[in-house]
């Protein structure tokens, strides 16, 4: 974060979807800096725009999505108006993504060996023998038993967990500098999950790969991330180093989320967050969390909150928890 030139820099990213009932704002004014070699986790409720914001960065959203941003740069390259060929050189090689639904991104008509080797051919131009060797090496890295034989398998012949591992192998095939992993371990059992997380953090450590990990599992966040962004209803509401976030959340939503963890429970009844995330039709004018926030007052309901300084977790909140005086920014 103190890094003067982050590897990935996003300013004021918004995504609107055209739907039958009008425009729907899925991502709302996100700013994000990710330093080279960093391991950042993005957490938040289902539908909070975690996947859509990162798909926007990768340029992989459908045409119904209207993307606006003041800046999206990768290592100084402006990603907003990249030509087709330039984008293809970058995506899949320097920037790669593991998708939330592995089956939707593997082609059912080709063996996994073919698909892996094709990625290697396109981006690295290896010869056939090296491609074969590298493909086996990759499957070994993701803990695939009997990799030589598995190269000949079609996706439908493998379990969901195995396909997920193939996806991970494809994503790291070209040693990307930035890997965005969208729920890479949700379909996997915990013993396999542990192995995959070790692999990803190992790559981050050994090769300096930058890793953005999207997850809803606070345990995974605590054990792997260095820094955490919390999203709510399309907005980034908090951004802190992992230890600080668990020790001292500044945004009431983050605090409520952590309190709801069964393993942090002090009583049999767990703390809850009343209500639900706002939808397209009940989006509040002020703070988006205000209808569910127990600290909310008229200011919160009426005015959009400012983004607090880093010392207050960059909380998007009028009254960050524990701040000595109300941190109202008057501009």
């Amino acid at each position, binding site marked *: 974060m103190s890094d003067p030139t982050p590897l990935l820099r996003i300013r004021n990213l918004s995504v609107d979807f055209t739907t039958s009932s009008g425009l729907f704002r899925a991502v709302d004014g996100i700013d994000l800096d990710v330093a080279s070699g960093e391991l950042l986790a993005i957490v938040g409720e289902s539908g909070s725009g975690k996947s859509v914001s990162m798909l926007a960065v990768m340029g992989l959203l459908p045409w119904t999505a209207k993307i606006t941003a003041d800046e999206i740069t990768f290592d100084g390259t402006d990603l907003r108006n990249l030509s087709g060929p330039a984008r293809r050189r970058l995506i899949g090689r320097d920037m790669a993504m593991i998708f939330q639904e592995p089956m939707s991104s593997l082609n059912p008509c080709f063996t996994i060996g073919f698909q892996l080797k094709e990625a290697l051919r396109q981006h690295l131009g290896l010869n056939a023998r090296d491609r074969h060797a590298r493909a086996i090496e990759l499957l070994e890295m993701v803990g695939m038993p009997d990799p030589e034989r598995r190269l000949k398998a079609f996706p439908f012949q493998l379990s969901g967990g195995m396909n997920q591992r193939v996806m991970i192998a494809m994503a790291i095939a070209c040693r990307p500098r930035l890997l965005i992993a969208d729920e890479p371990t949700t379909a996997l059992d915990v013993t396999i999950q542990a192995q995959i997380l070790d692999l990803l953090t190992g790559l981050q450590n050994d090769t300096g790969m930058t890793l953005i990990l999207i997850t809803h599992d606070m345990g995974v966040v*605590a054990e792997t991330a260095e820094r955490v962004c919390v999203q709510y209803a399309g907005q980034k509401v908090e951004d802190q180093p992992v230890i600080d976030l668990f020790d001292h959340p500044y945004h009431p939503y983050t605090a409520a989320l952590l309190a709801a963890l069964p393993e*942090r429970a002090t009583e049999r009844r767990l703390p*809850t967050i009343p209500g*639900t995330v706002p939808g397209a039709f009940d989006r509040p004018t002020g703070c988006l969390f205000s209808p569910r926030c127990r600290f909310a007052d008229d200011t919160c309901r009426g005015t959009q909150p400012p983004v607090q300084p880093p010392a207050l977790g960059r909380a998007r909140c009028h009254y960050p928890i524990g701040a000595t005086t109300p941190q109202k920014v008057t501009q």
Partner: protein
Amino acid sequence: MTDALLKPIVTADNLSRDYDVGGGMFSKPQTLSAVAGASFSVLPGKTLAIVGESGCGKSTLARLVTMIETPTGGTLSIGGRAVTPSDWSSLRSVVQIVFQNPYGSLNLRHRVGYIIEEPLIINRPDMPKAERVARVREIMQLVGMRPEHYDRYPHMFSGGQRQRIAIARALVLEPKLLVLDEPVSALDLSIQSQILNLLIDLQERLDLAYLFISHDLSVVRHVADDVIVMYLGRAVESGSKEEVFSNPRHPYTKALLSATPKADPRGTSTRIRLQGELPSPLNIPPGCPFAERCWKVQDKCRAERPALDGDHHKAACFFPEGAAEASAPVASAPVA
């Protein structure tokens, strides 16, 4: 009243379920043993949790206990009496089930009121309509739904609300045992805590017994009284929550606990690295099913299947954790 005096609602004795699979034109059918010899009982007001990784037979066991499927071996007893399929319809109201997916398990074409009422229409045809409606409204209130929800359709509700509808539907016949198959796995953390609180409340108020199926050990630790750990269709460990979590005896239980991420960024991870994969359920090795991945495997483990052994805290292992290990030639766990 102590537990010993309580009569179990449901008792499973050596309950098993095999499936014939494969058997295309050129291959001979094989037998898949989805649940092999499960024995347990569930007491009123208590929660028995079943944990284990994908495919270990948790949902199959749930279907056996709910009398959706016939066991291929062993017996299920309800209220002390062995159950046969001819008793199913009369016993249906005793055991009800809530499924994982709050989207898939409700009929989206019906209104909420009807969805909750339907089991009564089927199982209590003699009950007057007015009484049924009154019962539905009472149950809706019990699970924290508002009266105006009665006429709405499920698609108007969030995941957590739909899970409330599913719970209401399961409760309307006043069951004594609720089988909960991953009831909160599809829900966000903030909604998960609402549903867990609801389940805890209902249990206290109605003295319900739960068979709680989950792969999330932090949830199980919060709600369970007793725990069964399954691996490839078999119970490999069982005991009270405290016994199993604080003092796991089967190496698999120990590995599972160590691999579960803890929401504490200062914690030092001592994950046990397992080698190898879960064997195919069609090709379970003759000895201990965990042998191929176990760090202290001996020849004996591959040759012979260890029985689930012990008084209350049971484990199916020849070299259980915490036993006097000095005499046994065993390795310690490969911790990272």
